């Protein structure tokens, strides 16, 4: 058997978490160990990216072990050009989450890092699982640490937010579980994703299982109108939780669409795509308008995520190459940019203990380096060409425009609104007169915080100026996805075909 790099990357954090759980190290050691573990996972993921062959369309670094053969369950891991990018994104953001929590998390330090590392393992598992049962296990495991993170280390209203997050997500994933079982029954008694991808499911199966999966994925994205857990979860979560939530967790839904919905249910995808496009447009515009009037910084960024993730689903369900690659790019970019924005809010919250925009104003004068990062990521977020946000958004809109010109035009309005809410927020936080004299003595970012922000800034500029390396990783896999949908000649399913009785 080849070197199991995927499993190694996935379980290193888990091993680290177990060690922390049983060896009662002191706080400083816990932080240092967590950093070391997350750095090791990061190094492995980079190694993997280095060895990834972008010309191959199939799964790479595949590992297979028998698990429960009588049930058709195997332990199967592997990545393609889509998931490999998210694995790297996950390991990067986890390192930064450890760094940003260095001084922000003061209670239950050990437990916090255990939760963070368990979550990293689960997230890496979701992106590399090639067996539906394995996938579902990782998918559900992921919920628990995040639930705890919000519920224990969160803000004042954390219990409500944690329960809301948990129930919303659980409601979705229960339906997915039913869908998985239906697939097993109709797909030749196997949970192997690669095998299921070869099956052409009958119209009613496609129709209903698509909807079951859609429930789980739509909640995760989150799409309008099941988005209302996100603002609460983000607002209450600790900084590291917000970073992981925005950077990785909400990407799972869109990843699920790409991995399962599109290639397995092409007819159902064609059937529902127009409605999903409409929901995406609502998310983009509605999300942006609601963002406009937020007064809480974290809530503002959370709502802006609803709008930005609308671009992701819009691109994916435009069902053409520019749209899909743009959607993936937008996911990566949103992870980088919004992750950074939450880091920034966390950094300033630690100093002032306020998330209200009105508690700031004019702080660019006292924290110039902070302001520079802030402006950079705001510009990236509003899609300034030359920074990474533009590449994804432009490709998505191009894809949408090719599919339907009206959709493209409407999506474009989101770009205007993004400039409005982001710049207006920036103005009220960084610029204008300093309304609170105590902000005069605000400390600028220190070296640790600088190191936390720098990688994302470099990525943001690099992927804006030269996005082709990232795009070329996904070409072959998206090619295959397109071919699969093309081969099935996606046909719209009528209601009478879908009715199973």
């Amino acid at each position, binding site marked *: 058997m080849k070197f199991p790099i995927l499993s190694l990357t996935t379980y290193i954090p888990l091993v680290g978490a177990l060690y922390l759980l049983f060896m009662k190290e002191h706080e400083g050691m816990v932080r240092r160990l967590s950093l070391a573990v997350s750095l090791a996972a990061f190094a492995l993921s980079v190694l993997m990216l280095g060895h990834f062959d972008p010309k191959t369309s199939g799964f790479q670094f595949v590992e297979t072990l028998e698990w429960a053969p009588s049930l058709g369950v195997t332990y199967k891991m592997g990545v393609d050009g889509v998931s490999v990018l998210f694995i790297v994104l996950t390991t990067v953001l986890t390192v930064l989450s450890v760094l940003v929590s260095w001084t922000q998390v003061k209670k239950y330090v050990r437990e916090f890092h255990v939760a963070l590392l368990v979550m990293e393992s689960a997230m890496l598992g979701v992106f590399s699982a090639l067996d539906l049962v394995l996938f579902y296990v990782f998918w559900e495991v992921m919920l628990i640490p995040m639930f705890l993170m919000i519920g224990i280390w969160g803000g004042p209203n954390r219990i409500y937010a944690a329960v809301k997050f948990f129930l919303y997500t659980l409601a979705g994933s229960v339906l997915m579980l039913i869908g998985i079982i239906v697939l097993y029954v109709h797909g030749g008694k196997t949970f192997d994703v690669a095998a299921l991808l070869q099956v052409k499911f009958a119209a009613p199966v496609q129709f209903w299982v698509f909807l079951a999966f859609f429930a789980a994925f739509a909640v995760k994205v989150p799409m309008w109108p099941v988005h209302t857990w996100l603002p609460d979860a983000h607002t209450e979560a600790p900084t590291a939780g917000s970073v992981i939530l925005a950077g990785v967790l909400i990407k799972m839904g869109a990843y699920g669409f790409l991995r399962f919905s599109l290639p397995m249910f092409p007819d159902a995808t064609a059937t529902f795509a127009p409605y999903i496009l409409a929901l995406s447009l609502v998310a983009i515009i*509605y999300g942006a308008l609601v963002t*406009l*009037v937020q007064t809480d910084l974290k809530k503002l960024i959370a709502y802006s995520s609803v709008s930005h993730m609308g671009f992701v689903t819009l691109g994916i369900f435009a069902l053409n190459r520019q749209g899909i690659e743009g959607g993936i790019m937008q996911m990566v970019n949103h992870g980088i940019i919004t992750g950074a924005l939450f880091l920034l809010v966390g950094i300033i919250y630690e100093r002032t203990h306020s998330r209200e925009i009105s508690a700031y104003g004019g702080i660019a004068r006292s924290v110039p380096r902070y302001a520079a990062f802030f402006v950079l990521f705001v510009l990236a977020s509003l899609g300034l060409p*030359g920074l990474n946000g533009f590449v994804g958004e432009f490709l998505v809109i191009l894809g949408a425009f090719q599919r339907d*010109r009206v959709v*493209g035009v409407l999506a474009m309005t989101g770009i205007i609104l993004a*400039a409005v809410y982001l*710049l207006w927020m920036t*103005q009220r936080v960084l*610029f204008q007169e300093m309304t609170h004299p105590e902000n005069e003595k605000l400390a600028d970012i220190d070296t640790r915080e600088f190191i936390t922000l720098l990688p994302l800034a470099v990525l943001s500029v690099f992927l804006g100026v030269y996005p082709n390396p990232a795009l070329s990783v996904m070409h072959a896999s998206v090619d295959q996805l397109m071919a699969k949908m093309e081969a099935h000649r996606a046909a719209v399913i009528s209601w009478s075909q879908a009715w199973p009785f």
Partner: protein
Amino acid sequence: MTRSVVLFRDLLIPLLPLAAFLVNGLFGRWTREKAHWVSVPAVVLSFLLSLLVLKDVLSGVNTYASLYRWITVGAFDVSVGVMIDPLAAVMLIVVTSVSSLVHVYSIGYMHGDRGYARFFAYLSLFTFSMLMLVLSNNLLELFVFWEAVGLCSYLLIGHWYERRSAADAATKAFVVNRVGDFGFGLGLLLIFVTLGTLDYQAVFLGAKAASNQTVDLLAPFGGKLEVGLVTLIALLLFTGAMGKSAQLPLHVWLPDAMEGPTPVSALIHAATMVTAGVYMVARMHPVFEISPAAMATVAVVGGGTALFAATIGLVQNDIKRVVAYSTVSQLGTMFLACGIGAYGIAIFHLMTHAFFKGLLFLGAGSVIHALSGEQDIRKMGGLRNKIPATYLTFLIGSLSLAGVPLFAGFFSKDEILTRAFFAGDLGRVLWGVALLGALMTAFYAFRLVYLVFHGETRLLPDAAHRVHESPPVMTVPLWILAVLAVFSGWVGIPLIAGGDKIGHFLEPVFAGVAHAVHADIRLEGALIAVSVIVALLGIAIADMLYRTRPATPDKVAATWPRLYSLFLNKWWFDEIFDWAIVRPTRRISESFLWKVADVRIIDAFVNGVGSVTQQAAASWRRIQTGFTQDYAMTLVLGLLLVAAVWLAAW
């Protein structure tokens, strides 16, 4: 020199300012008050290299190169590259020369400013972006740097960000430009989707081939409204130009942009960035040429803006705002030229305007500097003898702006008017409009001169005492621009010194465009005479109102109070936008979408599901009493029920 060496030299022109930006941007804490030692040499070197490029282009050597593939997804394949042709060469010279002078001037003007290094960093970043904008070889690259110059404009307008008005103006500039870019972006999408490319040359060919295609705008809604595909493309692109070049009704950001430091106003908001729209239309002229409707729109918007902005310029009291409205008006004149197919002359006017308007802004800055920040012309007067260098150069700039013969502005503006006169019926109407605009221009230019420099001083005594001429680092750029504001027009004179040099130089770019109809030398002479008379008349009226009879202006204002108020309040554009767009959007978002749709409907439903479940569970819990007899009772009742149903069915 080999090709790669030439390319390297050409690339240095934008890259030097970029390097200066990186140094001052990243290490501003160390460069501090020495920041100009990084930025100024970089841009001056760029200027010198641009001269070499001009020499090459004059001898017929053009450059076209792709540097690297930027975004490649399927059929969508866009590179970053450079293209140097006569049009780009002219723009290179204009941008690097004005930028160099503004850089030098800023050493004096920004001396002692808290954000000195930041200022120079952004100035360099702007110069880089603007140079790349004119060097781009495809539309998406143009769009990238188009937004990049907008970003620099945003950052520099907000340089003194602690002032609420400056922060507001910066945000407004960016957002209004985004509205324009909404159109530009849609234009790009439509071009790619229909023509399959974004490369200039390929787009030109494709547009020609697609000249008969139409698009049904109302098809998605079941209606029918056919427009030419190329017309639609051209109009969408023009929307972007309207935003960047501040044309009606997207002009509202430019006057507010005067919140930025004055060197910024001179470089970005007069000489270079705001002319990018004109450059874009000229660059894309093969597309515009195909559509008479688009051309007419460009001409009408340009002519209309020229007159409209001039009316506002008549009555403003802030020295920079008067010059700003004048810029809006002059940009309108350039678009008018584009709209009648006189691209070469539009670019010629762009050049002379860059020099004389850059001069006027820097002069205004020198006045403000002398008065320690005062910008209200009602509080000036009599500065002529106190700041003579500023006065003389400002006077030269004003003469050029007013279109007095032998000054640069005269040649370019007069040529536009003449060409308009011969451009059909619409052209003749626009000629009249532009002539009226020219009259107002001459008037407000000299209103400014008289109010600021002539008459009795209206300064407070202690302010008057502190008035001082600016240092040479500021006045030398003024003098250089003054020289250019006179002589730069001479390269376009048709009759002397080897003929219309700039016209011939640009000819390869605008080949295939219909040339001026020089119908009758006597008629042309008469037209020139008319514009000269108009310019002098405007100056004479200003002289009468503000020098000989200073009480008259108030009487005039009192005679037409409505009109005066309309002009003074800029035709209420800001208020109308605020009332019709800004407020309703905010109100709907806040009190409906967020607080009703999200909170009262969606969340209420979610919480409702939760509490219904809880309540249901709470009431059903009572069934679990724990008493055996209760369970036995239920069991029996259940059995009876089943039996009853079974019996009934049987």
